[in-house]
């Protein structure tokens, strides 16, 4: 057994212990511990990726060499390794991008708790990716829920308190359903480890016994995960949660936390029940339809938002819809597209939240559309990052969103009955995405005062200017100065160095996914084949 086999367990344990240690450290040290932990996890996951890619086999790792029911299992292949690497990259970038705001948004005495929660989130994400045991999955689902609720609440802002209560209620319903489903499955198969449970399911399917409880169990698990990841009719907790948390929390919650549940669900489908069973029970059809509805309704809701943070949050509803649409198509190619879209969305959404923070800084802390006008000039880097993120969401070629869209569309071709709806909704959703994202892009690149008088636009004697007068004055000033450059729209805002680095890296990550998708999709496909 190679030493590298221990890496998954090490990374889970490491992040849990970081949480424990951080609880007694100061905020500053807790931050360092978190960053070091994420970097180490990244390194270990990369090592694991290299190893699994070279062997091309899935490995089942028995913890402490105890067989079930005492022991616990971890299982990993290329797919798990890719996801772990990717999740740690996005986690690292989100941490860097929102670092300065953590210290601004969170009460001084509680900053270390923030990092405790981040560490716990990280460990539960990794555990959900690696675990081969349904009950362990459940335990970490709960840990994740608690940590996420803490992350939302820690800003201690009226909205975020409401949001975290809402999140807690919705999520607990999800967890409860999952637990019930788990009990049913345990009752009829007597197994909790995934592979033996699959054999149990197989026996039941062949004998025809307990067919209703079996279907019920799968259905409840699907609904539970749909609630937790915010599929359309269960999405009501999303906008407040993502919209009002501190930057890092929004980025982590939207791009990673909801995705881990989907990965767990895929694992349950592929490894425990078998995809064919889910298809035969029409559960995939339900997911497909809900996915399509989410793609449209998420965007429609997003269009109606005034607040840009909430708009980005609603866009997550649509993107989650894409992922479930892929699940619902039920082919291997579609599943791969969904997995790729998990990466695309994680990379892009975290980038949008971080850049929106930069733009908010440049607009007096406001995030409604009107206040943001001209922000792209006042904070150029954040403006460009937002532009790239928006284009990626719209599916602009060379960015990762395009590859997702292409994979989805190609996967849809040939799936009878689902092809045309999928393709048409894909096209429609592109238009809707363009409507709300590019509207903001236009706003941030339109100078202040171009359509509405702002309170702070005054002439030398202190009279408030009408927009026309303001523009005229600007024009006259430029003419007399003999400058032919574009007018400067307000003072430049400096980003923190960490934030700038994070934004640049996020853009690069997005271009990387868009331009070098070949190896990634191959790895995902190879991983998917040994996933079951």
């Amino acid at each position, binding site marked *: 057994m190679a030493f590298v086999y221990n890496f998954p367990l090490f990374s889970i344990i490491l992040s849990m212990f970081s949480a424990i240690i951080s609880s007694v450290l100061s905020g500053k040290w807790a931050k360092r511990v978190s960053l070091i932990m994420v970097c180490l996890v990244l390194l270990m996951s990369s090592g694991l990726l290299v190893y699994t890619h070279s062997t091309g086999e899935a490995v089942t790792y028995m913890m402490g060499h105890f067989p079930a029911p005492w022991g616990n299992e971890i299982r990993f292949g290329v797919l798990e390794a890719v996801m772990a690497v990717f999740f740690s990259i996005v986690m690292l970038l989100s941490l860097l991008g929102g670092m300065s705001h953590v210290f601004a948004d969170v009460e001084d005495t509680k900053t270390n708790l923030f990092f405790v929660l981040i560490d716990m989130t990280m460990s539960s994400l990794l555990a959900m990716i690696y675990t081969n045991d349904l009950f362990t999955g459940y335990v970490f689902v709960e840990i994740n829920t608690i940590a996420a609720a803490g992350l939302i609440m820690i800003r201690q802002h009226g909205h975020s308190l409401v949001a975290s209560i809402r999140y807690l209620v919705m999520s607990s319903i999800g967890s409860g359903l999952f637990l019930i489903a788990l009990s049913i499955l345990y009752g009829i198969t007597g197994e909790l480890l995934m592979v033996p449970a699959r054999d149990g399911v197989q026996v039941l399917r062949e004998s025809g016994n307990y067919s209703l409880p079996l279907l019920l169990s799968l259905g409840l698990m699907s609904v539970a995960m749909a609630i937790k990841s915010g599929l359309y009719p269960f999405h009501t907790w999303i906008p407040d949660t993502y919209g009002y948390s501190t930057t890092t929390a929004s980025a982590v919650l939207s791009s990673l936390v909801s995705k881990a549940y989907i990965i767990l669900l895929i694992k349950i489908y592929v490894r425990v029940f078998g995809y064919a069973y889910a298809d035969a029970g029409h559960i995939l059809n339900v997911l497909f339809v809900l996915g399509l509805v989410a793609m449209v309704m998420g965007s429609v809701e997003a269009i109606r938002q005034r607040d840009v943070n909430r708009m980005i949050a609603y866009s997550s509803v649509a993107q989650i819809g894409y992922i479930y649409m892929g699940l619902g198509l039920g082919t291997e190619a579609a599943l791969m597209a969904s997995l790729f879209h998990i990466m695309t969305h994680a990379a892009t959404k975290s980038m949008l939240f971080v850049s929106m923070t930069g733009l908010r800084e440049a607009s007096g802390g406001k995030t409604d559309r009107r206040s943001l006008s001209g922000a792209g000039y006042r904070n150029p880097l954040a403006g460009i990052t937002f532009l790239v993120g928006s284009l990626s969401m719209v599916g602009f070629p060379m960015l990762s969103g395009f590859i997702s869209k*292409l994979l989805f569309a190609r996967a849809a071709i040939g799936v009878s009955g689902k092809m045309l709806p999928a393709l048409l909704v894909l096209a429609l959703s592109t*238009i809707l995405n363009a409507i709300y994202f590019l509207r903001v892009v236009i706003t941030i690149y339109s100078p202040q005062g171009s359509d509405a008088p702002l309170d702070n636009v005054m002439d030398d004697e202190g009279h408030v200017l009408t927009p026309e007068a303001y523009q005229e004055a600007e024009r006259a000033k430029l003419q007399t100065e003999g*400058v032919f450059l574009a007018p400067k729209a307000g003072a430049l805002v400096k980003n923190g160095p960490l934030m700038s680095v994070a934004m640049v890296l996020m853009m690069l990550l997005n271009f990387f996914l868009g331009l070098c998708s070949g190896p990634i999709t191959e790895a995902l496909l190879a991983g998917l084949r040994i996933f079951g």
Partner: protein
Amino acid sequence: MIDYLLVIPVLLPLAAGGIMLLSPAKNRKLFLWSAETVVVINSILVWALLLTGTGRENGVVLLHLSPELKVILRPDGTGSVFAGLVAFLWPLAMLYAFEYMEHDIRQRSFFAFYVMTYGVTLGIALSGSLLSLYLFYEMLTLVTFPLVLHYRDADSRKAARKYLYYSIGGAAFGFLGLVFVLSVGGSSDFVQGGVPALREAVESRDLLLLIYVLAFAGFGVKAALFPVQKWLPSASVAPTPVTALLHAVAVVKAGAFAIIRLTYFSFGPDMLRGTWAQYTVGGLALFTIAYGSTMACKEIHFKKRLAYSTIANLSYVLMGCCMMSEAGLFAALSHLVIHAIMKICAFFCAGAVMHKADRHHVYELNGLGRRMPVTFACFTIAGLSLTGMPLFAGFISKWNLAMAALTEGTVFGIIAVCVLLYSALMTGIYMMTVVVRAYFPGRGFDYNTLKEIRDPTWRMLLPIGLFAALLILLGVWSGPLMNFLTAVAKGVL
């Protein structure tokens, strides 16, 4: 190895535009003339590459989006026509823009994006596969939208928003076509007559036709096909060099060009001929011709009237394309080239009037013909040519279109000719009312009110005059160009 030179015309303007955006240069003259130099060098390079046939065989792979998705540049005959046209027009339009934009406060970003658009348009023209065309097509939206947004006021924001939504929405449907060509055809590389595997896919014929119609309408957004034409008249809020070059040539022709590529080089005319898909898209094109010409007569804003005329004329190109025959392709290409010259000439005249006289509506043009003789002489030539008067270039391409429609021998062809005649009548009305107002303002018109108004300087007049002269030249001596285009349509080039 020499094939790699093909990359330069696409990347050089993009790089130059990027540098222009960021450069701290304060000297306007130096800034602009170096931009012009880059554009001229680029155009010379394009023509040199096209004439030597560089990269025509194998093309150049620009980048891989994934192992099987290659962005490839390969100038075949059809691509060369568009690339050559664009390369000819761009330096002249830049020259015109120097004077037109001289009092503007955002010249830096204007010229930067103007130059970038050049590279992207060449990318569209030189693309060797539907995928690369799609890539540049999306980029075109991106680099031209700052130009529409140029004045940043409420109107231009609204227009830019409309432009973006329409374009991206259109591209989303074009994307469906691309996905089918990739998945069913196996590769999106252009082949004259259509991608073989796609032509042979028999069982899903109706589905393919449906996708073709959707993709046609999708790319038709940029070509201002009814019912997705609305963005074009609103986009005339942009500065005239943009409306003239982009909204009469580069952008809208990119849409028509993409449709030609889609029809003749991806799906293949043989598969489409005689099907319901042909009649659907053909019907749309014919309706758009009638609609555009009629609306142009109704419109009193000078530039918007020309924009409606563009809508009609683009559908001439699409109509030729819809004939699904060699003659149709030939007619489409000839109108693509000739309309570009006519419309840019007309727009430049309109821009000159706006710039020198600050008049924006048709009813304000009375008597200007005497004060701006060169401008209005050229406008008259462009107008006659657009109407399709013999001895002017417009006649040639309309003749080609009518011939292509008649050789079809179907009812569709006959209806097409009738629509052409109706549109010619309307064109005569909407162009000639302008000319008549300018030259014959009516009895007792007081020319003293126009005392201050003059023709613009050589930088504006040179492009205008050159285009007008070219229209007459092509009208009386179109042989070489037409032979070339025939060869292109036959696929021997």
